[in-house]
């Protein structure tokens, strides 16, 4: 059955942001948030494939206990560069800089972000930071682990640490400026009638993310710079031989890098909060609780960092405090899952690809989030800390959660971004492939971890081999799941069916304008007279409303 209810034989609008101007200059000097989003799309995809290539080599290497492919030095570089490329140059910018950049002005009825030129500057800063890191990768590589723990990174490593930390330092300013841009835009550029509690939850999630960008990123930037200074000029910040303290580095590093996990997952939660009401065709359950939990996660997320350090010898009182706070941050996450699930109740649910990704996200985020409860448990963390249990846990959050959200979001808004529809059947196959491949890759790693296999091992005792082979087999399926969308999405840009303004249909403002939109986004500034995700009072969507339109209160709960 066709899941697209109204195939009206749409035509592309005659003028839109993609054909408004031509030539390489019109792209490299653009200040249009939609074009900048596409520039980011190309660059983060590039880093995703670099990181993915490293991951592939890691999994092939671990097929045999003694290592199948590379030397220990190379293996250590592979997992380090995999982490750095994926975290700093793919996961952190992916949803905010691509989907957030494209959608926030459209969703709030604005012509662009508040500072269009700064938005372009963010992308160039990202490129310069990325160039430094690629320089590090290609001249000696990087073998410190993405965590850059001192004094290994600042004294003992023989790899190209200095250009890498400079690159990440520079890249930090890209995040800070993007966050600033989003905050100012959301505060000042909402269309008439777009009140705070009519904002799409995607925008709320990005508001929360931006707070972390602005408050957290300066800390990682300065921390890595200090490690670089210690390495270059032997200034004693973290090296005990020079009077420093290596534990200080971990405090500073995790003060950003734990909230950074929420930078990755909050926008994905925002995507899911858009997809689920659209394909269940009903208002989201507990709007204020989902919006509020995003802010709660961003705020509490700043007070849990030392749960990465339970076994550094930190004070037992500190460990108790941080364990308790870590359990607190689980609660707003649980609230979101319960609300998404309840949204399905009495919905009109379809199997469209974005919905498959959203449901897959819930499943994988559920496992990722619940296994966080194991790690927050002080007594249990003694055993599973720094094992494959942790590796599996954060991949469930970052790949199962954030990447599923990102790919699902790309599918959901692809018709808006390109004006074209992707082949639906193929996309469903890819979504299921990703889900199955992901679980087969990472679930065995939970067991490996509990059995005691430490992370970052280029060789391992033979008793761990069976589970490692399962994991590698899963990774090959997972890789296929990523290549498929890559191929058919590019194919659809040229050959896909024309989507029309609102193919699903969805209720957000971004669906009220052309696909692809005009450079100025809207012909006239829209005025918002409806509540979010309200299908009942929206005769303009052309759906069958039983009993005719009538006004209902915005949220039953407030």
């Amino acid at each position, binding site marked *: 059955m066709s899941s697209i209810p109204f195939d009206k034989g749409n035509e592309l609008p005659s003028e839109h942001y993609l054909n408004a101007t031509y030539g390489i200059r019109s792209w490299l000097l653009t200040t249009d948030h939609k074009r900048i989003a596409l520039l980011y799309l190309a660059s983060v995809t590039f880093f995703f494939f670099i990181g993915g290539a490293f991951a592939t080599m890691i999994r092939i290497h671990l097929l045999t206990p003694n290592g199948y492919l590379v030397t220990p030095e190379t293996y250590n570089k592979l997992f380090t560069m995999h982490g750095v490329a994926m975290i700093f140059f793919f996961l952190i910018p992916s949803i905010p800089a691509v989907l957030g950049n494209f959608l926030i002005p459209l969703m709030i009825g604005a012509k662009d972000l508040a500072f269009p030129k700064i938005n372009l500057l963010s992308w160039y800063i990202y490129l310069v930071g990325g160039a430094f890191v690629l320089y590090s990768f290609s001249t000696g590589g990087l073998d410190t682990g993405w965590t850059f723990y001192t004094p290994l990174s600042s*004294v003992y490593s023989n790899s190209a640490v200095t250009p890498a930390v400079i690159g990440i330092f520079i890249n930090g300013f890209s995040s800070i400026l993007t966050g600033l841009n989003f905050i100012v835009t959301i505060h000042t550029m909402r269309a008439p009638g777009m009140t705070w509690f009519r904002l799409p939850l995607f925008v709320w999630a990005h508001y929360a993310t931006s707070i972390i960008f602005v408050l957290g990123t300066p800390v990682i930037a300065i921390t890595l710079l200090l490690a670089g200074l210690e390495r270059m000029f032997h200034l004693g910040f973290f090296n005990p031989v020079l009077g420093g303290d290596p534990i200080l580095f971990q405090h500073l590093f995790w003060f950003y890098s734990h909230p950074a996990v929420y930078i990755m997952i909050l926008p994905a939660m925002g995507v899911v909060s858009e997809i689920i009401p659209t394909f269940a065709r009903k208002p989201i359950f507990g709007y204020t609780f989902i919006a509020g939990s995003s802010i709660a996660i961003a705020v509490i997320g700043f007070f849990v960092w030392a749960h990465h350090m339970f*076994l550094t010898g930190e004070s037992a009182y500190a460990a108790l405090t941080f364990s308790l706070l870590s359990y607190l941050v689980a609660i707003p996450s649980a609230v979101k899952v319960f609300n998404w699930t309840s949204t399905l109740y009495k919905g009109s649910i379809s199997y469209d690809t974005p919905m498959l990704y959203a449901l897959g996200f819930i499943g994988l985020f559920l496992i990722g989030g619940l296994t966080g409860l194991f790690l927050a448990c002080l007594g249990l963390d003694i055993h599973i800390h720094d094992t494959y249990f942790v590796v599996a846990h954060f991949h469930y959050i970052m790949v199962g959660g954030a990447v599923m959200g990102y790919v699902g979001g790309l599918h959901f808004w692809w018709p808006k971004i390109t004006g074209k529809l992707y082949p639906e059947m193929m996309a469903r196959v890819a979504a299921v492939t990703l889900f199955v491949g992901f679980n087969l890759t990472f679930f065995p790693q939970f067991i490996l971890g509990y059995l005691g296999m430490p992370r970052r091992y280029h060789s391992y005792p033979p008793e761990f081999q069976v589970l490692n082979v399962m994991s590698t087999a899963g990774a090959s399926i997972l890789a296929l799941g990523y290549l498929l969308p890559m191929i058919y999405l590019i194919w659809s840009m040229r050959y896909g069916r024309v989507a029309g303004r609102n193919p699903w249909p969805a209720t957000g403002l971004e669906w009220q304008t052309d696909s692809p939109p005009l450079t100025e986004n809207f012909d006239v500034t829209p005025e918002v007279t409806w509540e979010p995700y309200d299908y009942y009072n929206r005769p303009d969507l052309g759906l069958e409303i039983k009993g005719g339109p009538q006004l209902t209160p915005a949220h039953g709960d407030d």
Partner: protein
Amino acid sequence: MFAPRSAAVPNKERIRTVQSQLPLYPEQASNFAPNVDALMVYITAVCVFFALAITAAIVLFFFLYHRKKPDDIGAVIHGDSRLEALWLVIPAVLALTMFAGGAVVYVDFRRAPLDTLDIYVVGKQWMWKSQQPNGLKEINELHVPVGRNVKLIMASEDVIHNFSVPAFRTKMDVVPGHYNTMWFRPTKTGRYHFFCSQYCGTNHAIMGGWVTVMEPSDYAAWLSGSSGENANPVVAGEKLFADKACNTCHLPDGKGRGPSLNGFYGAKVLLADGSTVAADDAYIHESLLAPNAKIVAGYQPQVMPSFQGQLTEEQILSLTAYIKSLQSQPVPPTGAGIAPTGKK
């Protein structure tokens, strides 16, 4: 010991062989193992319940409310405050039980009993050295008696390492510039893997070895059988104390340029700034490498040189053992700097 794979092997044995190839948890060989595994079982049970409940709800709703006609919409339901309150409170209560269970085990793990057998462990890229109380040294091996509380006092020569024994369910970072301790009571004889769990550079993956848990009598025999070839740390420390000319200033009567070290270890020491510090391994370590950090009251700063880079961690451990051995000698009456009431 291992049954040959032949038709004579009973079915039960075969099943056990299959299970041992795909185990779900490592052997339980210390006092912590049953407690940690109990936490694992409890949290797994709660999580599996919630995961199944939510998955079941999603699957159920998916089939019950599957879109019947292409232009159908769903019911208008905006939320329910009672439900929200319920699923705020229930997870919070369950989370608190997990926190409490974990806290009990962790506090036990961090607070070593007083009657421990103390073994020094030094991590360096990429090997582990350990030293038994009688001075016997081992590399990438650790022998301990079953049923005895064992405390590892751990230092690092270079980067951060982590001493991890999955069968004991214990691990602890080994941090340069810090002493970290870790205790356990082996409950089962046998040989168990230990690993370095904190990434430490090129050969991180092979920086491991075996813990051998022995019957106390076997352990005693093993200790006496091989102790001759190794210097007692107290003797080595005494020699260092003279070689490095420590004894020229740290006179036993406290009248030298440095405080007396008789009865020093374990005492509460009054410092020049009026505060007190416990003279433990960490304080001795710091005073050797950064002598001006905490000056004992009544003595001048900038007198003692730093031994940073001149002493290995193992030598520092020997010196500490020697200073510890001075415990039995009487505190001189004029023992300047040692707070009179704080003795042990």
